[in-house]
């Protein structure tokens, strides 16, 4: 018996040693950035790298997959990536509107409100890209407790210009290429039920490392918060999984004295108890505010001109970082924030018009730099918003310089089918306000297509601007709500009955008249007995034919 067990054990070890062991690395970081308006932007990044790994080739989906062994990489996510042969995956769940003018560019560019998922995958698999895209959504929806299943064909686009691969794409045998699928659900909210499964994917979830700070009570109390999953393949390096959490806290709101002082404990309600033992690197960076006058405790391990860093080493003691302005009795809110934006581009998107049949889409962009900027403008609109492209106008100052707008790709919407996709290049002159406007038509939906809270309106996904120079970090506009005309939801039977009655009446009367004979009937008083009264004079046209 024992010998048998030993043989089985030995064979298992043998199989295990036969599979190539992949080297995995785990890095974690936290960046804290005090902002001009007293808030603190925090950015957690947990990066797992499988050295030498390659994404599953699409054509291999026909065969059984090799067994998967990971030490640090989350198996639940790895299985999804292998099952659908995903080359690159990006999922973001955000709540709130990132204020670029006050907070600058976020640590992770994907800050559009709601859920956003985009995936690059190769074709040439036995199942279509769209079927795998659907499967990916459902698997991720199950993993992260989100309603990603609502990303149907009506919301899926392929904006390859605005969402190029973040890593590299493996070469596929011709004629197969990589395809992009992108969808967003602007009304999707993010909460604890999404964070819990997210934390489970981390090697050191709550007990150690910077992830110990991820306290849902504080995170979801923040002014802005978002979760992100990014998987990409970097040629020569391997498959990289980057899990991010971003939150903008308001210490002024949380402090009873109205001060902007913060500590890790005041922000997160926790401190870092110990370092994560499996992390290759673990560091906390604090960006130093420009105005000075603050005290930072404890002493950092590294000091740079605009930031300091703390390295969490094994054997460290409990760490709490604090920053306080000892001279400041109360934080005085700067009033000139909107006039001095710190972002390169200020953008505002609005819908205008009170009617439920038409409206105007207006995008106002301002270049805050001294040099002209070239940006890619991406607009994805659900099919029930039909843009009139011929009314698209670009205004800069009082002129209408059409040369500012070019290189346009447009996919018109298909009713009950697929959304509008508009990608165009805009040139923003320095310190100028550029206004892009277009008229649109609102469609009328079937009563079964309306959501249960039909009167609330429909969320339109945010537009995306991608500067074509520099870091090419995407800028998301506001997600807007559009009001569509609703039918009466209690009426289906009544409408069917009344319309059919009218049609049947006309049908009946028409055929009655066309088929029955005309007769002349005596209707005068009876004069010569009943015989006369019943006399009928048939002079129907049909008789004379």
């Amino acid at each position: 018996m024992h010998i048998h067990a030993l043989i089985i054990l030995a064979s298992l070890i043998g199989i295990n040693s036969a599979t190539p062991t992949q080297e995995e690395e785990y890095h974690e970081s936290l960046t804290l950035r005090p902002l001009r308006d007293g808030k603190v932007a925090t950015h957690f990044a947990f990066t797992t790298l499988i050295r030498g790994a390659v994404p599953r080739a699409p054509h291999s989906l026909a065969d059984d997959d090799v067994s998967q062994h990971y030490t640090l990489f989350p198996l639940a996510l790895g299985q999804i990536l292998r099952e659908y042969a995903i080359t690159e995956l990006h999922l973001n769940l955000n709540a709130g509107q990132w204020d670029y003018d006050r907070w600058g560019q976020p640590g992770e560019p994907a800050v559009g409100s709601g859920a956003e998922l985009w995936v690059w995958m190769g074709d040439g698999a036995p199942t279509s890209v769209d079927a795998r895209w659907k499967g990916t959504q459902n698997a991720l929806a199950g993993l992260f407790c989100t309603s990603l299943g609502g990303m149907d064909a009506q919301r899926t686009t392929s904006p390859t210009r605005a969402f190029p691969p973040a890593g590299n794409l493996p070469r596929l045998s011709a004629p197969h290429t990589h395809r992009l699928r992108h969808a967003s659900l602007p009304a999707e909210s993010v909460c604890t039920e999404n964070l819990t499964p997210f934390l489970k994917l981390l090697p050191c979830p709550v007990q150690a490392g910077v992830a110990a700070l991820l306290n849902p009570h504080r995170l979801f109390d923040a002014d802005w918060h978002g979760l992100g999953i990014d998987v990409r393949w970097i040629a020569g390096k391997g498959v990289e999984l980057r899990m991010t959490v971003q939150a903008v806290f308001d210490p002024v709101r949380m402090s009873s004295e109205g001060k902007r002082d913060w500590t890790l404990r005041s922000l997160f309600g926790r401190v870092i108890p110990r370092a994560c033992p499996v992390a290759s690197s673990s560091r906390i960076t604090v960006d130093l505010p420009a105005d000075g006058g603050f005290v930072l405790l404890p002493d950092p391990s590294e000091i740079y001109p605009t930031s300091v860093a703390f390295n969490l080493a094994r054997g460290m003691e409990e760490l709490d970082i604090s920053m306080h302005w000892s001279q400041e009795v109360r934080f005085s809110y700067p009033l000139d924030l909107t006039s001095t934006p710190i972002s390169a581009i200020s953008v505002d998107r609005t819908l205008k018009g009170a009617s439920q049949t038409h409206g105007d889409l207006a995008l106002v962009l301002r270049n805050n730099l001294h040099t002209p900027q070239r940006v890619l403008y991406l607009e994805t609109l659900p099919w029930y918003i039909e843009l009139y492209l011929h009314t698209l106008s670009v205004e800069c100052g009082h002129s209408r310089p059409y040369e500012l707008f070019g290189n346009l790709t447009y996919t018109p919407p298909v009713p009950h089918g697929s959304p509008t996709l508009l990608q165009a290049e805009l040139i923003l002159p320095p310190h100028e306000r550029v206004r892009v406007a277009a008229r649109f038509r609102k469609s009328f939906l079937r009563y079964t297509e309306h959501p249960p809270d039909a009167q609330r309106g429909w969320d339109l996904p945010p537009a995306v601007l991608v500067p074509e120079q520099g870091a090419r970090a995407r800028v998301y506009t506001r997600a807007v709500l559009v009001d569509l005309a609703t039918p009466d939801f209690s009426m289906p039977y009544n409408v069917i009955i009344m319309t059919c009655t009218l049609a049947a009446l006309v049908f009946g009367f028409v055929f009655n008249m066309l088929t029955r004979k005309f007769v002349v009937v005596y209707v005068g008083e009876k004069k010569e007995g009943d015989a006369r009264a019943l006399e009928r004079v048939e002079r129907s046209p049909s008789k004379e034919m």
Partner: protein
Amino acid sequence: MSAGRWTLLYIVAARLLLALSLIGESLKEDHQLASPLNAYPRLREGTYLFNHGISPYSGGTFRHSPLFLPFFSWLPDSPYLNASLWTLVDCISAWALVSIWNARSGGVRSRGVLLASMYLINPYLFLPSLATSTASFDNALLLLAIKFACERRTPPCLFSLAFASQLSLPSILLLPPILLLLLSDAKSHLASPKSFSTSYSAVAPVVLEFFAYFATLTGAATIATGGWSWAANTWGAGLILPDLTPNPGLWWYFFTEMFDHFRPFFLMVFSMHLLIYVAPVCIKFQHDPLYATFILVGLIAMFKPYPTLADAGLFLTMFTLFPETYRYLRYPIVTALLHLHAFLLLPLFHHLWVGAGTGNANFFYASSLVFGVANGGAILDAIWAGLRIAVGEVGEDYAVMQE
């Protein structure tokens, strides 16, 4: 120049001035005046996409016939040019209507001025024209087809009808009565019914000729757009109703409120329902095919998938071609009042629903039902009068009824 001609000139001038005053700009997408198949902004969107190398039929915004594309791509988008063009089209329609009357009456009684002005000042026709709805083009082509049929000029008649059918598929249902009209004459035989006497062997070449024109135009449309995608977007729209934009017809709300699993069935029923009237009406009015055409114009206006006021307007204006039936109409006042009622309620309730937000969709649906009842009443009365006239006068003590 006679007083009548001056009157006409004044009317045309007034219409042109009104059109040039651009009051129609705000009406361009009015749901009563322009359906998804003939709204002008959609036409401009289509030509814009066409000119920029994007297939206009890849989306659902543009549902006009491809035959519009080359012309409107060439025509500059000027409201003044449009005002003149649409007024001209309406003048052509009015002229065709007068020609139809002349062919029917043999030029005995001069009602030309009355007829032309009835076309030009009919609000159901005038407002869609102000809104630059291409329904005016559909009407003009249809009237031209009838005019040439009355004058027994086969090629132009069939070509106009083929063109009209390209622009609006339900117009093809008028082929049988127009064929009868081509092969007989336009004179009024309502009072003296007789069987259709022309040999049926004459029908086949004419039908073939029609389908030759139709195929040529279809081929031209396909070449112009470089594919067949246009057919699903234009003709297909009338069969599967992808766009549920409100209109004064019966389809849109019915299919907005339809249960999803019954939708294909009822789409089939509603399409068949349009077909079912053609043969009976043509058989019953074989002695007077112009009257059969008139009745079918009314039925199509009422039951087509995307009607506008212009469709009903054409039917009501064609009433003026048949003065001999007036004395046999049973309830013209009721019909007229129903039309007045619908004409006032439709824009009002539409605004309350989608504009002011104080009413709901049922308000507009109710007024479109009233409009349907008014149209149905007019059609039924016209059929009655057209049949009753054959019985002639009866004494005071007698009444005419159906067995």
